[in-house]
Structures are given as structure tokens and as C-alpha cells.
């Protein structure tokens, strides 16, 4: 049974570019959450998707957007990249709101 899988594992982009990160949730999970983890910090909540809709959003600008597909997989899009967007982006899935999150290994994004 595969857990949460994220792709790609590493990515290097230039300021101003756009990036798309992908996530497949653990089998049986229908809720996907995205977190940004800057170096030396805890994960910061970006947003959460359920039934293909954004249910909750953290304190992130509109440059951060997402999507959930009918098979529950999800994408995180970031437009107009800034140097400060460099971080580990973690996807997590869960079967129910409030149940423990299952994390992928993350995508390391470097913006130069």
C-alpha cells in the first residue's frame, strides 16, 4: 500500500517563474493538505482540499493556488516565484478531518 507520494523530489526555478508540484494521497484518503516548511521552521499550513474544493486556507498570497482531481490527487501551483518561496513543500493526506496526517517526503524547491 503506497503512502503519500510527491513529485518531483527536487526543483530549481528562477525568480518570476511558475511551478507545479504534485501529490498522490495514501490509498483511502480523500483530504489533501499542503504545507510549506522553510529551513529550520515548522510546517506552515497553505491550504486543504476535499471533494475537489479548497476548504481551508492559511496565510499565503493568491500566488499559491491548488487543485484536487476526482482521484483525490492534488497539485500546488506557485506563480511569480520569489526567493522566499524556497522551502520544502509537504503534502499530507488524511481520511477524515482531524485525523492524523500522513506526509509525503516533500518537494525541495529552490528559487534562484
Amino acid at each position: 500500500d503506497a503512502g503519500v507520494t510527491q513529485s518531483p523530489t527536487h526543483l530549481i526555478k528562477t525568480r518570476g517563474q511558475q511551478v507545479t508540484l504534485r501529490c498522490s494521497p495514501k490509498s483511502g484518503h480523500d483530504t489533501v493538505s499542503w504545507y510549506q516548511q522553510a529551513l529550520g521552521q515548522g510546517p506552515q499550513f497553505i491550504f486543504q482540499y476535499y471533494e475537489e474544493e479548497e476548504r481551508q486556507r492559511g496565510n499565503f498570497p493568491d500566488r499559491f493556488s491548488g487543485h484536487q482531481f476526482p482521484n483525490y490527487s492534488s497539485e500546488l501551483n506557485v506563480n511569480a516565484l520569489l526567493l522566499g518561496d524556497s522551502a520544502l513543500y509537504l503534502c499530507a493526506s488524511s481520511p477524515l478531518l482531524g485525523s492524523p496526517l500522513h506526509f509525503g517526503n516533500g518537494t525541495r524547491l529552490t528559487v534562484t
Partner: protein
Amino acid sequence: AQSVTQPDIHITVSEGASLELRCNYSYGATPYLFWYVQSPGQGLQLLLKYFSGDTLVQGIKGFEAEFKRSQSSFNLRKPSVHWSDAAEYFCAVFMNRDDKIIFGKGTRLHILP
């Protein structure tokens, strides 16, 4: 505002010694509480969780945590640490009102041989 505080950024203990990592939360109701561990370059792994009931919960890898409502704390403990326990530990809280889980800034655990 709701928050999770881990007051210790770094903790160093000797192998075989006991461990306690502190976590305090600020929330108007009894939250769901979690501890996660993260090894370098990896995602987060759930160690244990508290939803309700017995305030002392057991987790994986010999860890336990105690929920103290009066102190708004959920400290993680282990009686005897192993070198493989060296990692970053995160306390997390599920906020019912906001339907999201928020994390503390983490405590990095170093183990001396």
C-alpha cells in the same frame, strides 16, 4: 490567536538518558494533539496522538506523551533515548473551529554517544 509553542529549539541528551520535549498550545477548547518526528530530508512521521480519554498516550518507538489540560501542555517523553532518535520533533494541534492542523516550530534532538 491559536498557537503551538515548543520552547526548546535544541536539546542534547546522552544516549540512554531520559528525554522530555515540551509543547504548549493556545486554544479555547480541548484540541486534538499530535507529535511528529522528521529525519533529515524526510517527511513527518506520526509518533502518537491524543483525541480524548486517558491523558497518557503511548506511541511508537517507545515514546509517550501526557496531556495536561490545566497547563495546556502535551509533553513528549522517552525513558531511554537511542542514537537513532536524533531528529526534529514537532508538536501539532488540530483546531476544530478552523479544520486544520498547525505545527510548532520544532525541537531538534541531538544525542551524545
